[in-house]
């Protein structure tokens, strides 16, 4: 006998930290007591359908990301349609037909999802909304709502960045540090901004000690090469180095490049061919 008409909790692969739909609804209700939980449940159902079978890099079902982003947005006191859009912010990447979200959840949610895509995240917002957001989050402007979802998306991605490949991780951390964290603070979301900044620096700091040291050593090694060739090998080695995932593999790679550098240097300085051998022969080297 069905006691509750609820959507499958699918708690199997979730960690305790992953928010639940119930949790998200509770947060929304605490800020907007008269809000319709049905809308959120329908949005969750849509997200479950269209993200079914998809997984995060961590191996978690994709829906955990939707819930996490929705929870962050709910904590920012955003109204229910914005939380719905957060649940569905990646639905355009799925097989979901374009009109479906508008039909199921209303045009407002559909438009918000589209706005998230086009939202410009800038460290120095031009709009001048500034610190309005935090105080006025219950009735945010369109742009503010879209931006909040984008920032929440980035925040959860940064919280789970450990599962991303090293090169991409650095890129994302750099962008988060330079653009997203300042953007969050600029619209009054200081807590989000601070957490983004902390997460990004945690990625960027150790990079200084391991990844960049091997990279720097490679730069020094190119000094052995003919000057007009240095830039190419430096770039080629860095790219190959970046493809290695463990510190140990990177160290070994760099060490071997070090051992091979004199030979490479010799090869590059050799004008390639018999002509040179002839010349050498004439001088009696062979």
């Amino acid at each position, binding site marked *: 006998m069905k006691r509750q008409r609820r959507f499958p909790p699918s708690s199997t692969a979730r960690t305790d930290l992953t928010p639940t739909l119930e949790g998200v609804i509770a947060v929304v209700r605490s800020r907007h007591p008269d809000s319709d939980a049905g809308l959120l449940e329908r949005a969750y159902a849509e997200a479950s359908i269209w993200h079914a079978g998809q997984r995060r890099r961590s191996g978690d079902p994709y829906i955990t990301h939707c819930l996490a982003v929705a929870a962050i947005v709910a904590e920012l006191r955003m109204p229910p349609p914005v939380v719905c859009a957060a649940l569905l912010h990646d639905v355009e990447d799925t097989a979901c037909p374009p009109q479906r979200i508008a039909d199921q959840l209303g045009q407002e949610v559909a438009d918000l999802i589209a706005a998230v895509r086009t939202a410009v995240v800038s460290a120095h917002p031009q709009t001048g909304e500034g610190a309005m957001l935090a105080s006025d989050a219950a009735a945010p402007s369109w742009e503010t709502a879209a931006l909040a979802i984008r920032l929440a998306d980035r925040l959860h991605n940064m919280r789970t960045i450990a599962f991303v490949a090293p090169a991409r991780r650095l890129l994302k951390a750099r962008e988060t540090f330079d653009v997203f964290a300042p953007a969050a603070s600029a619209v009054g979301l200081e807590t989000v901004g601070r957490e983004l900044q902390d997460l990004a620096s945690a990625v960027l700091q150790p990079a200084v000690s391991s990844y960049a040291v091997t990279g720097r050593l490679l730069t020094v090694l190119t000094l052995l090469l003919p000057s007009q060739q240095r830039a190419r090998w430096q770039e080629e080695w860095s790219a190959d180095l970046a493809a290695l995932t463990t510190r140990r593999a990177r160290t070994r790679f760099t060490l071997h*490049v070090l*051992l091979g550098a004199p030979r490479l240097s010799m090869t590059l300085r050799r004008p390639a061919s018999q002509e040179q051998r002839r010349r050498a022969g004439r001088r009696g080297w062979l």
Partner: protein
Amino acid sequence: MGTPRMTLQTQLVLRALLEDPARQRYGLELCELAGLPSGTIYPILARLEQVGWLESSWEDPAVHEAEGRPRRRFYGITQDGAEAARETLARTYRSRKQPLPGWVSAHQATGGGAS
């Protein structure tokens, strides 16, 4: 042009490239395919490129930008390189009286051998 010295390592690199001559590979990939360390691969690649057996070029920006990583240098074996490499490797094998591996047969066939 000239011919590269057929060291064992050079042979391994050429064999790795001849497995799929149409495919471009980057240095680290060839390290794995040939089972050679990085320091050995790059001088060989540089030498083979010098003699015209290989060509190298930077990766298509669309690909590496989409994957969010630095661009790689890709190496492909040239038409001349593939022929010369097959010939040289076949000679090396014959001199050692070993059975010819599959990828040499392409060269043999052009030489007129049936079957």
